[in-house]
């Protein structure tokens, strides 16, 4: 699968993240892109999945960030939540929510038809 990985520096927004990571394309191999060891995905301690086909609401806009907040309550500070969605607006949603709340968006991965993956570290 052709995968795009963006490593997100703390405090950067999604657009900046695109520039920061230089639109790195790599063949995914067990969650760690070959030839790009520095862009290995962060380890996660919990998973939140919100896919449109399993949600009658279609867009996750109204539900996604409150759901992330709820899930993060179960984690300790410094632990990482992986979020999987198939709603492209989540790129901006999650980046904005992290800037507001002070939690850190460590990385996001665009897996094409499979959707988007985000790694959020609890503040």
């Amino acid at each position, binding site marked *: 699968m052709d995968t795009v990985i963006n490593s997100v520096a703390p405090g950067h927004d999604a657009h900046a993240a695109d520039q920061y990571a230089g639109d790195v394309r790599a063949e995914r191999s067990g969650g760690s892109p070959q030839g790009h060891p520095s862009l290995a995905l962060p380890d996660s301690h919990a998973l939140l999945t919100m896919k449109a086909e399993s949600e009658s609401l279609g867009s996750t806009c*109204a*539900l996604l960030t409150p759901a992330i907040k709820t899930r993060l309550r179960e984690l300790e500070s410094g632990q990482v939540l992986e979020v999987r969605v198939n709603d492209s607006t989540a790129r901006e949603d999650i980046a904005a929510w992290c800037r507001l709340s002070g939690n850190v968006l460590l990385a996001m991965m665009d897996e094409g038809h499979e959707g988007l993956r985000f790694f959020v570290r609890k503040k």
Partner: protein
Amino acid sequence: MPRLLINCTHGKEDPERATLAFIVGNVAASADQEAVVLLTVEGVRNATKGYADTICKEGFQPLREVMQSFVANGGQIWACGACAKPRGISESDMVNGARIVSAASVVEWLASGASSLSF
């Protein structure tokens, strides 16, 4: 911490506007913003026990669930006293997390720098 005031002016007669105010408020509260949903005009009825239970606009979460999530995330629900009184609504009618406020409280919140958005 940034303060927000989201004004909701509708109840059952416009479920979409009633729900959207709380959706925005809930997103704000979940991002650790100091968020208040101010209920005015027919919107004050949303703060009364049982009223929101049957409000569900197609494509949205039921209003009751959004309100509960908003309060659980630290959001405050204010019902306009001037709107509540002529509708026979008192403090004892309020749902958990809601209270009746005066216009002065609203003005004070805004004057302290709160941004506002109205539905």
